[in-house]
């Protein structure tokens, strides 16, 4: 029976290879401990009321039990939860975690060393043999590109994030996202659900190629959805009766749109402003799509319609701020801009009170310098802590259709837990433990001081940067401030102005930052990855919804600036003749300043009275002091800030009743 023999042989080969292959079996063996118990902790399950003192038992990746009186298994590793609060694992609801990052150097020379050489360039991710050009391929799957590990996933976990929606960030049809747990040795292990949604950006493709305008983008989206409908009809007709009918083309791009058209796969649409959101909703209604809005900075203004249509929002925590210095040429800024910045912090609270379902997303921002402070700002502006927590946990799970297995602390759910010491929603929360799929994550102690290596490549300063988008060279100024391995700062120039986020500097001078930009009238997001050597920087930049580009820059040499900064630090002593600009009116004033050891004293004379300066101080950036004035019969405290440059003085006056500016010159003695 040679045939039988060969079958047995085949079966044996299969068995052997099975034993050699799967990593998932080896995990169970590798990790001896799979049972944990966090005891005596405050537990916030989100799905129910908080348990002031209780325990959570984790076994084999799942939550085995939770409650005030839970039997602790004998084999459990016990974590004393005294002083700790246990939350469900936090979601970042829109990221590119695990997706290919742009290489830090645009054209890495082969064998040139550094990790840049091996990484793929972040061009638009493409599918094989697609009928559509790059950027218009809805069949692209994030799960085909996600790789475990990496700095960004690590950084997110250090922020208490256990789960993230990950998707490509380029193109019009950007591709389909996957929900991943931020731990695991393989992509397969990480994925909780895939695909979750098809992502749509409305940013045109690179210039010169259709569609090159927002109008064209809408036209293409419409045409492709119509084509997909016809594709389905043709396939069905052919399946019913192939004889006598010309075989319709197979088309995976159009086929990928069918679950979108029948509503089984939601569409995540990038839209920030009120009108961007309205347009996205119009398109969704036209084609009966299940829409989810991503970004949503002005979603509060469309809250009624969002609730009516049951459209959730993945709300970006990347709030706009003013990033440019006070300058007469730029001020006053339009009232609309001033309103937008203030209103953005109120959006979360408005969505909550309008009962619009929303979840928080970082917008690829994972730096502690922005992330938790902005949640705190949303809470200060009308969002309850309960709603904030829900937006980080159960609401996200509901939006992504996984609330049966995650999003709250309940027996049987996936053991993703974020454990804090003290309050979660502070500007700088402390994470005691993070569990992902039932396993603890290594938490690094918070970075405090700059390491020697990071200090060696200091980024602090002003940089003149040229960004090449492939079709144009755009100039901008990048101002960086280094704090340990974190960077803060802003851009200003041909890409608009914005504050940077997710910014870090590695020991070798590799740096990364994300910033909102304005390209061809469209708000989008740029991620810069590059290398900093001395006073030069270069690297590559990716834009959400567009082809990537490169950039290079150099530090603005202190030579020219030091002259001004020296004069700014110059002695402001003397008598200054001021023009005080209050609203549309200008009033004269006199300011006598006298520099003393480490301080400043003097007298301010104006139509509002004569006042002595208090708490005066002076440093390289300028001077500031408090003053009191009598206005309409009551005493008002004013904060005066300004700077001196040569024989000129300028600054601002703030008080509870308003805002004024002043400029002036030194009186000749």
């Amino acid at each position, binding site marked *: 029976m040679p045939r039988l023999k060969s079958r047995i042989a085949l079966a044996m080969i299969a068995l052997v290879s099975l034993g050699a292959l799967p990593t998932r079996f080896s995990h169970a063996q590798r990790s001896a401990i799979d049972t944990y118990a966090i005891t005596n902790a405050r537990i916030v399950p989100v799905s129910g009321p908080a348990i002031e003192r209780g325990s959570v038992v984790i076994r084999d990746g799942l939550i085995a039990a939770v409650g005030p009186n839970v039997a602790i298994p004998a084999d459990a590793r016990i974590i004393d939860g005294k002083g700790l609060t246990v939350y469900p694992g936090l979601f970042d609801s829109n990221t590119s975690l695990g997706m290919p990052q742009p290489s830090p150097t645009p054209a890495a020379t082969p064998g040139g060393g550094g990790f840049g050489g091996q990484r793929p360039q972040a061009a638009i991710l493409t599918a094989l043999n697609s009928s559509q050009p790059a950027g218009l391929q809805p069949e692209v799957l994030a799960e085909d590109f996600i790789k475990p590990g990496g700095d960004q996933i690590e950084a997110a976990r250090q922020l208490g994030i256990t789960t993230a929606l990950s998707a490509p960030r380029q193109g019009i049809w950007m591709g389909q996202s996957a929900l991943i747990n931020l731990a695991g040795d393989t992509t397969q292990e990480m994925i909780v659900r895939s695909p979750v949604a098809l992502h749509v950006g409305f940013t045109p493709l690179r210039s010169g190629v259709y*569609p090159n305008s927002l*109008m*064209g983008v809408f036209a293409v989206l419409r045409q492709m959805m119509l084509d997909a409908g016809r594709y389905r009809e043709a396939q069905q007709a052919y399946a019913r009766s192939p004889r006598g009918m010309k075989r319709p083309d197979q088309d995976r791009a159009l086929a990928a749109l069918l679950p979108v058209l029948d509503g089984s796969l939601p569409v995540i649409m990038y839209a920030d402003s009120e009108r961007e959101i309205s347009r996205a909703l119009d398109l969704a209604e036209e084609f009966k799509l299940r829409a989810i809005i991503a970004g949503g900075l002005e979603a509060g203004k469309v809250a009624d319609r969002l609730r009516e249509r049951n459209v959730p929002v993945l709300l970006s925590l990347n709030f706009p701020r003013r990033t*440019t210095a006070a300058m007469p040429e*730029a001020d006053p800024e339009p009232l*609309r801009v001033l309103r937008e910045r203030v209103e*953005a912090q109120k959006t979360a609270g408005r969505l909550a009170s309008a009962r619009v379902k929303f979840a928080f997303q970082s917008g690829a921002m994972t730096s502690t310098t922005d992330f938790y402070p902005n949640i705190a700002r949303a809470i200060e502006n009308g969002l309850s802590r309960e709603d904030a927590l829900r937006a980080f946990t159960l609401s996200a799970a509901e939006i992504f259709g996984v609330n049966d297995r995650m999003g709250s602390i309940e027996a049987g759910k996936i053991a993703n837990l974020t454990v804090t010491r003290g309050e979660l929603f502070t500007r700088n929360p402390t994470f005691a433990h993070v569990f992902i799929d039932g396993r603890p994550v290594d938490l690094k102690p918070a970075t405090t001081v700059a390491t020697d290596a990071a200090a060696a490549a200091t980024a602090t300063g002003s940089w003149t940067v040229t960004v090449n988008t492939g079709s144009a060279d755009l100039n901008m100024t990048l101002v960086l401030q280094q704090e340990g391995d974190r960077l803060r700062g802003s851009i200003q120039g041909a890409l608009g102005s914005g504050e940077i986020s997710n910014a870090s500097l590695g020991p070798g001078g590799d740096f990364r930052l994300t910033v909102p930009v304005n390209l061809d009238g469209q708000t989008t997001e740029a991620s810069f990855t590059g290398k900093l050597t001395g006073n030069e920087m270069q690297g590559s930049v990716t834009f959400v919804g567009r082809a990537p580009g490169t950039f290079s820059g150099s530090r603005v040499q202190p030579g020219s600036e030091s002259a001004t900064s020296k004069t700014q630090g110059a002695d402001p002593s003397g008598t200054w003749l001021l*023009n005080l600009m209050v609203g549309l009116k200008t009033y004269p004033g006199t300011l006598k300043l006298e520099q003393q050891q480490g301080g400043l004293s003097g007298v301010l004379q104006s139509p509002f009275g004569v006042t002595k300066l208090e708490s005066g101080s002076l440093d390289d950036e300028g001077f500031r002091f408090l003053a009191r004035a009598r206005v309409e019969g009551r005493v008002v405290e004013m904060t005066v800030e300004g700077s001196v440059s040569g024989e000129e003085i300028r600054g601002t006056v703030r008080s509870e009743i308003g805002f004024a500016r002043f400029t002036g010159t030194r009186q000749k003695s």
Partner: protein
Amino acid sequence: MMRRLTIQVLFCSLIVTLTMPQSLAQSRVAATETLIRNATVLTVTRGTLTNADILIRNGKIVALGKDARAAANAKVIDATGKFVLPGIVDCHSHSMLDTINEGTLSVTSMARTSDVLNPHDIDLYRALAGGVTSLNLLHGSANAIGGLNTVVKIKYGRPAAEMIFPGAMPGIKFALGENPKRSNSQPQPGQTRRYPMTRMGVEETIRDAFTKARDYKKSWDEYQVARSRDKNLVAPRRDLQLEPLVEVLEGKRLVHAHCYRADEILMLINVANDFGFKIKTFQHTLEGYKVAREIAQHGAGASIFADNWAYKIEAYDAIPYNAAIMTRAGVVVSMNSDSDERARRLNIEAAKGMRYGDLTEEEALKLITWNPAVQLGIQQRVGSLEVGKDADLAIWTDHPLSVYARVETTFVDGEIFFDRQQDLAKRPEFLRERAQLEAADPNRPPAGGASPQAPRRRRPTNTDDDLWEGGEQP
């Protein structure tokens, strides 16, 4: 220093003015009736009425003449010594469009301006302050066949959907000459020049598109017949590029064709005649006076500038008598802005029609009211003051053809969307709000930070050849 101060103060007051209307919206009273009393009413179609009243109810003009009787709770406006003109209709505008050109292809009839409306565009408020109440929002002129237009009423402060002019005929932009053949623009590096590059090519592009549209219509017609026999028949592909052209062939969509030279105007008339459709308006039409009779014979209108020329070769032969000559030849002529700036003073553009070529007062007024309304097929509702029409009108301090005339109040559908006195009254409130906002954390300038740049212009102020594609000007 003094100059800087003055500029700052001026800028400040400008900003305040520009940010008015959101609060005006709150103060808008839902009065059931409005009575404008004792005005000089320029009806445009029925002469001038002196000491006349206009009664507005539910957005419509319900009485016009002496001693109109209003309800007790009606809002009464004394317009003694003032003039009332129908709301100005601007037949060529790019206001409130976030992008204007889809410049990549020669035929972009699938692009729709209605997808990119910005209802918060401050230029809308400025237009209202110039007595304008309706706009024809056109795609740019980078393509032989451009995108679809949108006709709007300027209900500034409302969502874009509420601004769409109800029942206005849909239209499409065509363009002839230098812009579609791209003679004044450079291709992107690494890209070949787009076809067509000559006027011959422009004609061929249009003929080719309509030939395809005719075939497309035929394939659908055949499908409708064959479907009854074969249930398993798959419908033809819906083509969003060709569908609007079929509508043109069927007379359901108006063609607004950008053009300059006489020869290209005659060319397009021939093409239209060959395919059996009509051109509704020639836009710009700088050499229209040379072929006025042919334009009139085709039944087309012309929408032009009063005195704007020589900004490129094909614009050298323009003359200020264009409006008068074409009017005398029987062409329906309108004066348009094609510019956010010019839109604020279309009344002066109309007045130039009297200065050059001796149009009558009524003919001059028609250039910006009745005639553009006819060109857009909305004359049943706007363009003149008559009982039953929409209450889209403005109260002027002087005769609108005078340089001293200023708009006091602008109504759209009987509602006030601009009022000079309310604007002035609200300014202190905005100053207070500004002070509060500037003190708020996200608006504080950082201690360091880059110095700001002058804001980019959203659009060139004179979009004479509306080639702008969004983003930065080259």
